[in-house]
């Protein structure tokens, strides 16, 4: 096939386009990190997971140490069963406790690990028993209003008696 003077420019154009795609895939979508997400799995039961979603971060001392892999409902205990995938490099004692926390006021929910003191470490397939549910804003507001109503209800009652 004969060459034309445009070949260089067409080649450059296609290469720039391909480079842009690769840049987007690596830099903004982090393609490489997804593929080597090896780790060990740990399950935990929560009374209420609030707005936790799969792929949410698992943090300890603020550092991301793993991801939420899946969330299911356990209909024998009526609790949420959360499977975490923790990175191989990080070890946690078996009596570590899990909390569902929120980053910022309106931020995403994530799971925080408070390390315990056991000598044995969590291993693949272990179950974490000590968990603390998400704070549900509606329940908090409900409790607050209930408390306020009690205060407000008793104060005028006292003044009437006097």
């Amino acid at each position: 096939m004969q060459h034309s003077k445009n070949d260089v420019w067409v080649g450059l154009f296609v290469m720039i386009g391909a480079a842009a795609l690769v840049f987007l895939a690596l830099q903004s979508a982090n393609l490489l990190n997804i593929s080597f997400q090896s780790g060990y799995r740990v399950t935990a039961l929560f009374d209420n997971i609030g707005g936790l979603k799969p792929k949410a971060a698992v943090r300890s001392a603020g550092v991301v140490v793993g991801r939420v892999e899946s969330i299911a409902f356990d209909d024998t205990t009526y609790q949420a069963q959360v499977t975490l995938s923790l990175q191989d490099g990080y070890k946690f004692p078996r009596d570590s406790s899990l909390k569902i926390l929120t980053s910022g006021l309106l931020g995403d929910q994530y799971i925080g690990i408070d390390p315990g003191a056991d000598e044995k470490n969590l291993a693949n397939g272990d179950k974490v028993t000590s968990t603390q549910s998400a704070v549900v804003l509606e329940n908090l507001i409900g409790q607050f209003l209930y408390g306020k109503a009690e205060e407000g209800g008793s104060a005028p009652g006292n003044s009437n008696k006097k």
Partner: protein
Amino acid sequence: MSWWHPAHVGHAVRGKLADVGHGTRLFVQLLRLLGTALRRPQLMGDQIHFLGNYSLSIIAVSGLFVGFVLGLQGYYTLQRYGSSEALGLLVALSLVRELGPVVTALLFAGRAGTSLTAEIGLMKAGEQLSAMEMMAVDPVSRILAPRFWAGVIVMPLLAAVFSAVGVIGGWIVGVLMIGVDGGAFWGQMQSGVDVWQDLGNGVLKSFVFGLTVTFVALLQGYAAKPTPEGVSRATTRTVVMASLAVLGLDFVLTALMFSI
């Protein structure tokens, strides 16, 4: 006879149906000519050069400025909620999912679609297409098909360049000028953008828009009245119809791709 007379209505409907039929036939013909277009890469290469390389500068500059503006506007809104770290995610998602494919398609319709329509319309007005037919050369496979497939190949690449340059523009404004933390900017983006769900669907969108814009441009040129006025009208119609089709299709595609 007034406009509501049945004969008028019937004539108008028949005319529209014939247009739709011609358009569909041309579209199917162009799709089936992929093999023919690939067997003559020289023709397609020239068209990629004409449609792609010459559109690259306008696409890159527009992408840069759209990225700048997204960085500024996004920062002022996010900062109210104390989550300015999510700026990277906002910029990348809006570019990759929506702005990249759509704005590129609109610019492509204005920059390359019009020139395609005018070129084909003038070929028709100068009776070059008829001359080719006389020589037993099919103008659809010799003239239209290479342009069509070149446009379809070029669009996703241009959209990718637009998004990539836009992300860099958002980074320049957000991180370098305003001072958002660079690690959080990229980190939030990387945890929030999915390769297949967001990037893949964006590329698919730009591919569909490439088909749409190039086909509309070629059809308008091929069906233009062979007069100077007819060519000018066809060029205008290319921009209007291609833009409307892109925006309408974008809604349908977004509803199909991103609704959960």
